[in-house]
């Protein structure tokens, strides 16, 4: 029986017949699962959904979904996805990339897809390492990361993905954790609903080459004291018992206050406020929690909307030969 005949598609209906080949325990499994759940929740038509990826472990993602899928070349997925969306704006287009694919070899395309605000959803699986090439440091690896290509520690400062997106002019920026079904699911839904380019950084654990790199914020021991889950219009509270609040000092530097006593001082999350977004991205995560959820979302006109309005959606209502004949011509009898 064809899936299309079903009125309700389950998460399993979105999975392809291909055997998943990530390392056992890889964070990618959890992301894939939350994705099929989200697709099912949104009941997206499989035929109208396209996953485009570049190169890397994350880039195998499209093979495991029974939607349209295109596994392209290193770093170029946003450019390919741009062409897909311009050709057919009715498609829901998702880009799956990683820290190397999206921020190193493909940094340029990521920047331009974001500032152009074309309606594609970009998911960057950040594991702070090159996995598929066996563990070299990546553009998000922390300083002094020891790896096969940096035995004495890496020398270059990491690029902060969300700040890169903000600087590029993204209209939607979110952060989530691979195994956090609820948080990641919410962010995926929101990014689907957002018209324009969305950027989501997913902290994804590489169990082989960089295991536990996010444990300070995502590990069981770290707990909720180290995670600030943002909700638009709600105070920025965190901790097991929501006992902490994020506030600003007189010099505008962030401080942590006792939310039980000083709730009025606690900042209210406004995802349309670019300054708040920058502050949240800049939090020194040694002292402060890391911000998760939709950090910034401010819709603006999408590229394909203008493109198709100005350029008439590939309509043809005249012949090029008539244009030529109406130009400067002369007749020979």
């Amino acid at each position, binding site marked *: 029986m064809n899936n299309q005949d079903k009125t309700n598609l389950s998460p399993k209906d979105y999975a392809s017949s291909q055997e998943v080949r990530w390392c056992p325990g890889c964070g990618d499994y959890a992301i894939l699962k939350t994705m099929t759940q989200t697709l099912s929740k949104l009941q997206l038509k499989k035929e109208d959904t396209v996953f485009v990826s570049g190169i890397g472990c994350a880039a195998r993602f499209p093979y495991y979904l029974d939607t349209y899928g295109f596994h392209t070349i290193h770093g170029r997925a946003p450019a390919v996805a741009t062409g897909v969306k311009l050709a057919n704006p009715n498609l829901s287009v998702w880009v799956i990339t990683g820290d190397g694919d999206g921020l190193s070899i493909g940094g340029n395309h990521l920047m331009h897809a974001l500032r152009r605000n074309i309606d594609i959803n970009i998911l960057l699986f950040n594991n702070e390492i090159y996995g598929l090439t066996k563990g070299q440091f990546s553009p998000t690896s922390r300083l002094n990361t020891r790896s096969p290509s940096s035995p004495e520690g890496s020398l270059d400062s990491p690029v902060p993905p969300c700040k890169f997106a903000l600087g590029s002019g993204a209209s939607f920026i979110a952060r989530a954790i691979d195994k956090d079904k609820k948080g990641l699911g919410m962010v995926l839904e929101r990014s689907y609903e957002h018209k324009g380019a969305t950027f989501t950084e997913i902290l994804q654990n590489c169990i082989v080459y960089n295991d536990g790199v996010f444990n300070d914020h995502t590990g069981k021991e770290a707990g909720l004291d180290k995670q600030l889950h943002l909700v638009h219009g709600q105070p920025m509270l965190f901790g097991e018992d929501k006992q902490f609040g994020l506030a600003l000092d007189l010099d505008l530097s962030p401080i942590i206050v006792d939310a039980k006593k000083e709730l009025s001082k606690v900042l209210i999350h406004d995802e349309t406020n670019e300054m708040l977004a920058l502050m949240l991205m800049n939090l020194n995560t040694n002292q402060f929690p890391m911000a998760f959820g939709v950090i910034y979302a401010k819709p603006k006109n999408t590229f394909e909307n203008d493109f198709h309005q100005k350029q008439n959606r590939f309509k*043809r209502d005249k012949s090029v030969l008539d244009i030529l004949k109406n130009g400067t011509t002369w007749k020979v009898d």
Partner: protein
Amino acid sequence: MSSDQEKSVIIRFAGDSGDGVQLLGSQFLKTSAESKENFLTFPDFPAEIRAPAGTTFGVSAYQLQVGGIHIASPGDKADVLVAFNPAALITNLQYVKESGLILVNEDTFTERNLSKAGYDKNPLVDGSLGLFQMIRLPISSQVGEALKDSDLSKSEIERTKNFWALGLISWMFDRNIDSLTEWINNKFKNNNISNANIKTLEAGYSYGDIHEIEQKIPKLYTSKGAFDAGTYTAIKGSDAMAYGLAAAVEITNIPILFCSYPITPASPVLHSLAKHKDLGVETFQAEDEIAAICSAIGASYAGILGVTSSSGPGIALKTEAMGLALSAELPLVIINSQRGGPSTGLPTKTEQSDLNQAIYGRNGDAPIPVIASSSPSDNFYTAIEAVQIAIKYMTPVLLLTDGYIANASEPWMIPSINDIPKLDLVTNTSTEHTSQAKAFERNSETLARTWIKPGTPNEMYRTGGLEKDVLTGNISYDPANHQAMTDLRFKKIACLQQDLPEQKLSRNNGSKNLILSWGSTYGVIQETLNTCENLNADHLHLRHIYPLPANFTELVQCYEKILVPELNQGQLAKYIQAETSREVISFSKVTGQPFTVDEIKERIVGLEGTK
């Protein structure tokens, strides 16, 4: 100038890149077209946009040949040179015939300009130009005089001098200037400027009348062309390419997304397409060359046709993505307007040196069809053919043109859409499979896979640059499968070869000598064979370079000598030797300039000598 029956004149305009020389040339071309003259033009401009005034590296030139039946090149050396300053004179003298006519703006021959150009003495007075007929024109002062009552600034007045020269040249060739006046009125929004340009145009024209005798300004005549009945336009190569793509949409009914990144000399195709709406071709200026080809590939994946266009350095950047399109079996057209290389090379000069890059320049065994345009108007037809091959065979196609073709103009009879050769665009309608495998069902004649478009229910499939199973399209690292897929990619090329039209000779005199050429050299070779008497050679011009036409090898076997002229170090020559095991004589030139009739003629004569 040739014999009376076949009278053509070669004119060269040269000046500072800000002097409006290109505009002058293209407007003179228009008057020639209106007089039903044959013509071919060759703009020769520097890479600098506005180099410092008066310097030799800032000189821009525009050459055209007008008149006669057989001209198919901008001509060798000029019969007439118009030089706007000493730098233009010193750099362009080499392109003027002995005893040729030189018109100079004598007002610019100041000590400062002379020294900037590298003259120790004033060549107008020191007798060094004795071999030429020199006409000294006070263009700057004449322009000043004509506009003495105008409100324009001094520099604005000076800038009208190209129209003065256009007026004088129009007088010399007995052209009607009414249409030029009309054009000026439409072109310049500012009334003061358009009035001033018209005034100086008329002043230049009447200067000829008044000074005909005292200054010995000659009247020049050219013979009319021999044209079939029809409606003609002056077509520039880059425009022909753009119009060809639009016509391809009309024929195939498949819209085009044209994705490009600005580069010389390919950008005019982008400009030409961006100007027009409602033709079913939309343009997208990407952030770089790689994004341009990748977005084109994305468009093809989504079910319309992606086209990308660039020049050598940009094409180099696109090579990895070409491999993706080949591996994923998506239709794609890649246009290369070749320029001088390697690296940044000679951006504004012409060359045919990207042939090897086109045939071989990818990782892996990656066969991609290569076709080449032979003239400005031929771009129209090669664009249509490239689109059709790409769609029919589900393959990227490389279309080679070059800077000379892109910028040159020629008269062209506007065809009817029904006269354009069409390929039978077969599509698979079998419904044997659903989902993934359906996209990998193949047409038995072309071996093309099925072009499934996202949005189609029940046929969702995944593909990419990893090797695919020959039946299901799923990832496969199986050794025998990779052999089968590689064989399949080459078999597709063999199918295309059987589909190509039979290769014909462009000239068949039963000679034992063959001129074998490709690309933009077609015109100059034809002109040489048609205008020089007693040349003993046949001519074969290749449009389909990879694969070669099926009858090609047999066709060339009967020749004793095969001369291969090309604007590179012998790339086609080596390719032909490898493909046919035939020895050929390479005739290469890499000066950034096209071949001249004299050069071709000399080599053909040379063939006889070594017999």
